[in-house]
């Protein structure tokens, strides 16, 4: 494999994380990683832009995630409205967002918190989840994300903004009410 081995070594973790955050199942994430590498290696000899390799791999992985969702015949994407985060009485709500701790003595709390966050991310409608994972988890910028998803930069900004407010609401609700809604 040679060059391919190096590519797998370098990107398998990132693609696995992306697949897991998009689908929520280890088996689906594994399928997405495998499908992504196989498709990429088919055309690798034509690929010359080293710096864009990561973007290209995520573009393939995104298509694999969307195909998987279609196969599962999921419901159509819901829209997230910014209005739902504005208090009807004109007041500002208070939000309880916990801190992440790397202290080993807090492993149990951290694991609970991770479950809450993972569930909240998975409850995002797909088109918002794709943008959130590419921008905030994988660190692509707005233009790169727009290119990977084939949408405008403005759509990336709008979806990211709504996804962040949605997640803030979900996470905070868990800690205020003791459950993920």
């Amino acid at each position, binding site marked *: 494999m040679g060059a391919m081995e190096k590519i797998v070594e370098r990107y398998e973790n990132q693609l696995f994380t992306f697949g897991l955050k998009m689908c929520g199942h280890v088996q689906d994430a594994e399928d997405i990683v495998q499908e992504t590498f196989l498709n990429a290696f088919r055309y690798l000899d034509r690929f010359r832009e080293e710096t864009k390799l990561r973007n290209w791999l995520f573009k393939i992985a995104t298509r694999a995630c969307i195909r998987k969702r279609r196969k599962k015949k999921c419901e159509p994407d819901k829209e997230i409205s910014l209005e739902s985060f504005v208090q009807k009485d004109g007041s500002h709500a208070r939000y309880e967002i916990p801190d992440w701790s790397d202290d080993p003595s807090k492993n149990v709390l951290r694991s609970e918190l991770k479950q809450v966050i993972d569930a909240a991310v998975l409850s995002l409608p797909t088109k918002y989840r794709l943008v959130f994972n590419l921008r*905030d988890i994988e660190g692509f910028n707005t233009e790169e994300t727009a290119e990977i998803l084939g949408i405008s930069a403005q759509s990336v900004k709008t979806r990211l903004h709504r996804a962040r407010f949605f997640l803030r609401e979900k996470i905070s609700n868990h800690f205020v009410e003791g459950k993920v809604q």
Partner: protein
Amino acid sequence: MKEDCRKYFERISEYLDGELDDEICRKIEAHLEECPECRECLNSLKKTIQLCKEAGKEAIPSDIHERLRSNLRQLLKRRSQ
């Protein structure tokens, strides 16, 4: 939510991502100075993003890593034959 708050609420993500020009940033910062509710909104959003980033780190399990290598080798071999 007041009109000013509403106006900046819609752009707070772009502000956090450094995607706004200096003039709008200055206006937002001036508003944040005098509006504790918007400061709270900004901080809670910042904390949410940070938290999701921390929780977003995953490592591929070793059995999947091994299986993936082996499957890819076999599939690529079959393809080249």
